């Protein structure tokens, strides 16, 4: 059992949760993720880590389905059944030059924070962070943004109610046109990452993105999270979660991500019914 030590809303859909997980925290490197089992009969789901400090890890979570909605009901002092990790194969933290991390969704924002924080420590890196939210009210609290770990920071909202109007891709395009970017990391919405790959390819700027396919064991045993990199099968759990965006088959990834949609709805319905009968 892993004790919850902090829990706060990031916006109406996303929340952060901090748990005691000393072994995970001790070994965490940006790009690693954890596998959670929220409750005894729960599923194993991968989750991004924003921060690992003092034997605790902080995760950004979106209320998306049964598990994340149920977990949102927990309070400080409650426990999570299992926190397993760190998982995955993190990228090297080294000198990349003018390096971008851009994100537009909960998991991407967590990775943005974790990566920028470490990239900034390396001499010779000029860290440019970009974060996109749908509107002003959805922007995370300031100290959870990667603002503090970047040399340049761009906050955009899709409706223009705060910061720059539009998606981070627009900002990035300006940079690319000026030839100022050496390396790009990105995480978040899959269709946006696919578009990002298309955008950066003609400029020949290395682009590494986080993709996590549906996982079960997350140790390379089940093959559920297989993706295709240049036609070759890779597992996002042990080979990833970061891959060369220019080599990924995004259509396959996007399609497979939706494989369990019906089942997820069924699980949600069952959960709601059960909660009603308890009330």
């Amino acid at each position, binding site marked *: 059992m892993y004790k919850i030590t902090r829990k706060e809303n990031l916006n109406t859909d996303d929340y952060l949760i901090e748990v005691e997980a000393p072994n995970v925290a001790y070994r965490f490197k940006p790009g690693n993720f954890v596998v959670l089992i929220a409750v005894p009969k*729960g599923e194993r789901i991968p989750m991004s880590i924003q921060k690992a400090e003092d034997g605790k890890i902080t995760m950004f979570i979106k209320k998306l389905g049964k598990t994340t909605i149920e977990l949102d009901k927990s309070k400080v002092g409650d426990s999570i059944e299992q926190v397993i*990790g760190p998982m995955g194969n993190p990228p090297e933290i080294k000198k990349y030059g003018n390096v971008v991390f851009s994100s537009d969704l909960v998991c991407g924002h967590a990775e943005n924070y974790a990566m920028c924080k470490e990239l900034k420590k390396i001499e010779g890196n000029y860290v440019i962070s970009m974060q996109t939210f749908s509107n002003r009210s959805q922007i995370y609290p300031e100290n959870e943004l990667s603002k503090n770990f970047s040399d340049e920071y761009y906050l955009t909202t899709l409706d223009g109610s705060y910061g720059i109007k539009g998606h981070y891709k627009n900002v990035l395009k300006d940079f690319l046109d000026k030839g100022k970017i050496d390396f790009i990391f990105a995480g978040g919405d899959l269709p946006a990452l696919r578009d990002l790959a298309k955008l950066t390819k003609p400029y020949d700027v290395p682009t590494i993105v986080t993709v996590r396919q549906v996982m*079960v064991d997350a140790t390379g*045993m089940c*093959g559920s999270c*297989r993706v295709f990199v240049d036609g070759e099968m890779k597992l996002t759990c042990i080979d990833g979660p970061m891959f060369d965006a220019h080599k990924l088959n995004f259509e396959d990834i996007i399609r*497979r991500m939706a494989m369990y949609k019906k089942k997820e709805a069924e*699980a949600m319905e069952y959960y709601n019914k059960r909660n009603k009968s308890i009330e």
Partner: protein
Amino acid sequence: MAKVNRIRVPMRELPAEERIKNFNSVPLGYIEEEAVAEAQRCIHCEDPPCEKNCPLNMEIKAMIKEIGQGNFKEAFLIAKKDNPIPAIAGRVCPQETQCEENCNMRKIGDPINIGKLGAFVADWAMKNKSSEEFQIKERRGKIAVVGSGPAGISCAVDLRKLGYRVTLFEALHKAGGVLQYGIPAFRLPKDIVNYELSYLQKIGVDVCLNSIVGQNILFNELRKEFDAIFLGTGAGAPRFLGIEGEKLMGVYSANEFLIRVNLMKSYKFPEYDTPLIVGDKVGVIGAGNVAMDAARCAKRLGAKKVYILYRRTKKEAPARAEELQHALEEGVTFKELVNPTKVLGNKDGWITGIELIKMKLSKPDSSGRPRPEKIAGTEFAMELDTIVDALGTKPNRLFLSRTSELETEPYGGIKVNGNLMTNIEGVTAGGDAISGGATVIIALGDGRKAAKSIHEYLTKLYR
């Protein structure tokens, strides 16, 4: 001398139509009278072939004799002495090719049902809370056992009983390895697995779950912290066919299919969170035990038609006779001499079927079985909603890719000598991790052999 009964005391089983509705154990187990009667069929050979053919060299003759006299506790103690998990081995060992293979009773009738007798005494002890009494004399030496499957269990138990401090590392959130995630409950009930595993804690083996060596604990850390290591990391990585369309939705590796069902309890979805998608028509590629397990799970999960698709014939199928028989009884259709060439799908990315080519058998290949050959121009399509690839597994590259100092065989298994020592001093390995695909009992035997090797190594080291 009384006339011996040539025919086995039949094992009562759940009727097929009943069992495809649930995951309860198919064999119901002998009751005391049945076990005694079966044991009394034993002719107590002077030089018992059953014991010679047992990878654990269990004292089978003595065990059966005690059962025949109604001394179940004594029989249990004999079984437990050589086999740390008799209730499991009795259920999943391929007895027909081991202890029961050369049983002299076979010459005049049925061999003794040694497997079910072993399971009977273990179950009896569990029900009657009967256990062995022993004292462990603590001894110098700390040992890490990696993997809590059958090989790891037997190695950990033997070393702990010798007095060493043993820590068992398991990657998943439940111990047991293949016993937990691989073998379905109707063949191996999970309360039996959990009971047998509780023995580890009882004798003082330290079990660390969620510990993925090579990932969140480094192999080098183990080497520093422990005096000897056993690697029972299994063969957990799936194989795919590598044909067109395999990335379509609806294609599962048998590993994923079974992990979802067994470890994550998908068969109780949505009470349990983890889903599994099983369509009306399911095709399982392969004909080993894992293929039978997947096919029988699919049946229980509501599939109307389940096909085993195999490139050879039933006769060459690597599955145990009992498993194949059970699958057929449950309505699984065995399609012989077909090989997949392409997975067919629709524009939404879901599979719609499979294209197969007819095969014929020719001269034996290196496995000794007739080599299947394609018959050109015989491709045909078959409608399917779900495909399960049960093509065997290979060692997990997560562990191996991060332990480059460890020598491996060309097929990916860890390289060991006759004493199961790897190229690194004090590091042993066994089970599927070295063979790529062993049985539970061979893994148990390996664990035991490695324990002996480690004991000899440490004895020399501390002398």
